[in-house]
């Protein structure tokens, strides 16, 4: 792989990691507060649909984003209702939410647009475009010089190549996702809210008897989870793609969950895990079969690699992943 190709692969890694990262941080907030969430996938899907639908109807991607977030937060609220208020099984609730999203998106899409469960393609202001950084080479330069971007980039120095291709040119949500990592770290470890959030995932009774509302904290965590999943879904439909197609999350919610376990519920590690999984996807997308030193790795192995790695982690071969202690358990005071 030459240098330019490598940049290209990393560039696509960043794009593909973004939804994973947003969903992974979403899961991090929820699970750190003791609410397991296997419904990341469903929330993303719902958000993807509503963001695309509203963006295509109104022509404004920002309204689409809001709609996506709202839809995801409704599902998050449902998960909260089931697992916090009614102290139900969080895993079952997550499964239900995934199905609900898979079904409802197509049902509503069909009802609204009659295009076989998709939204119309988004054009112009209905999509997030790339942010062109100052001094970076982009389509504008190509138009000005009349030469293709690839040629322009190939002709410049490596640092400028990295800047133009890898750093610049992504949609704003990509930068949001990566900025969310330090923000998450800061909130979790440097604020009162973070301390309480982490405590409620470890021992809700301690939080309760300290005079802080367990229910309130957990709903807050679940709401943040909904917000981030909403952005993730909106990114899929309005930035990575141009419109909603059925099941477009394609297991990303589960990969995000895998990344979360991989990262052992820590924000920076979550970013690295998501980048790794994004990288695997980028490779698998580009190359059907990868030749590593004479051994041909079929694309199916690349597709399955995130899942296999997660199992290996869970098996404890790469260190044990210990989830928040109160995770998955409803907080029950009176039997």
């Amino acid at each position, binding site marked *: 792989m030459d240098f330019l190709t490598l940049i290209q692969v990393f560039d696509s890694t960043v794009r593909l990691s973004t939804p994973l990262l947003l969903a992974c941080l979403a899961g991090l907030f929820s699970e750190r507060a003791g609410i397991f969430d296997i419904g990341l996938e469903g929330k993303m899907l719902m958000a993807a649909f509503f963001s695309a639908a509203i963006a295509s109807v109104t022509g404004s991607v920002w309204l689409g984003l809001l709609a996506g977030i709202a839809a995801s937060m409704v599902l998050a609220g449902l998960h909260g209702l089931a697992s916090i208020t009614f102290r139900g099984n969080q895993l079952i609730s997550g499964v239900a939410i995934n199905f609900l999203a898979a079904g409802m998106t197509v049902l509503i899409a069909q*009802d609204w647009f009659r295009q076989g469960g998709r939204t119309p393609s988004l054009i112009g202001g209905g999509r997030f475009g790339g942010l062109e950084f100052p001094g970076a080479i982009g389509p504008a330069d190509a138009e000005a010089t009349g030469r293709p971007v690839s040629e322009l980039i190939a002709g410049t120095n490596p640092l400028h190549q990295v800047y133009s291709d890898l750093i610049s040119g992504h949609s704003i949500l990509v930068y949001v996702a990566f900025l969310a990592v330090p923000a998450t770290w800061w909130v979790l470890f440097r604020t009162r809210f973070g301390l309480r959030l982490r405590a409620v995932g470890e021992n809700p009774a301690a939080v309760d008897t300290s005079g802080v509302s367990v229910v309130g904290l957990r709903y807050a965590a679940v709401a943040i989870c909904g917000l981030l999943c909403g952005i993730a879904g909106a990114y899929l439909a309005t930035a990575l793609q141009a419109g909603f197609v059925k099941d477009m999350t394609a297991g990303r919610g589960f990969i995000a969950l895998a990344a979360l376990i991989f990262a052992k519920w820590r924000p920076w590690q979550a970013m690295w895990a998501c980048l790794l999984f994004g990288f695997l996807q980028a490779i698998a997308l580009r190359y059907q079969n990868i030749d590593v030193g004479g051994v041909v790795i079929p694309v199916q192995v690349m597709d399955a690699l995130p899942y296999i790695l997660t199992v290996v982690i869970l098996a404890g071969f790469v260190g044990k992943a210990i989830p928040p202690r109160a995770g998955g358990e409803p907080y029950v005071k009176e039997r």
Partner: protein
Amino acid sequence: MDKMPKWADVVLIPLISLILAAALSALVILAIGEDPVAAVRLMVSGALGSTYGWGYTLYYATNFMFTGLAVAVAFHARMFNIGGEGQAMLGGLGVALMCLYVPWPHWTLALIGASTLAALFGAAWAAIPAWLQAKRGSHIVITTIMFNFIASAVLNYVLVNLMRPQGSMDPATARFPEPVHLPTLHELLAPIGINFSKAAPANVSLLVAVAACVLVWLLIWRTRLGYEIRAYGHSETGALYAGISPVRITMIAMLISGGLAGMMAINNVMGEAERLVLNATEGAGFIGIAVALMGRSHPFGVFLAAILFGFLYQGGAELALWTSIPRELIVVIQALVILFTGALDNMVRMPLEKLFLSLRKGRA
């Protein structure tokens, strides 16, 4: 005293949950501008109005009995096996290998051979998550989800690169030879003078599934192993005290669960498609969750719930065919059933418990 009489727990709560799910589904249908009554009528006539409809309803129900039992057995040992889908896929591989590469003289032998390998493959696919749960404490829900994805990658590879016949474009195995053809209900019922639709895929696997229900019932409530599974499911420390090995029970329960899920393949792969295609399971592994929840993990409940979901599935297919309601409606209904009977169980239970408590106090 219990907070509620047993019948309320076993019958009333699922019933109310079901009614809630149905009411919400009706609202959904209304919201997309269709008539729920007409939709139900269409579903009933499409799924139950002809032997053709029944044939499909029972065909789907057969799938769901296997996967529902799989989830139920694991539930009894307090494990949530979301991996039925992957286990059933692998079961399909087992069936395909048996049917394609062994020259069976008669379908009965083929059925035995195929069921065995399907169960073995399904169980093997459950074994790793089970082992990780038992020995390493890795959460079985996460590992089985991961194994679903890995299973579909495996199947994909096998179908695309290994088992696809020369020159064929679709990723599917060759058609199974004639001797392994399983008799359909049409063929089974014709000798006794019942004219069952020839086109419907319900086949002799239905009887195997019903037998599996009975066997699982015996296993859970009449054998020592079942006793140990239930005891372990209720209390792990209790199991330790009684000398019931958690590792052993976890493994055995998951192997049985995976085996049952794998056996679904005799219905959809051997009985219906007669070749292995991608995504042959069509989400039946997940529906097993709803079926087990609805059926309160009891084989008889699973049997009834499987038929209900078979009806929903076939009825939903009919809806998709004759109206503009997409097939996804059944996914929504399935989600609502899981939501109400599983996650929101307490929403129904808590007021009911209060009601029964006050009734009792009133009487006392």
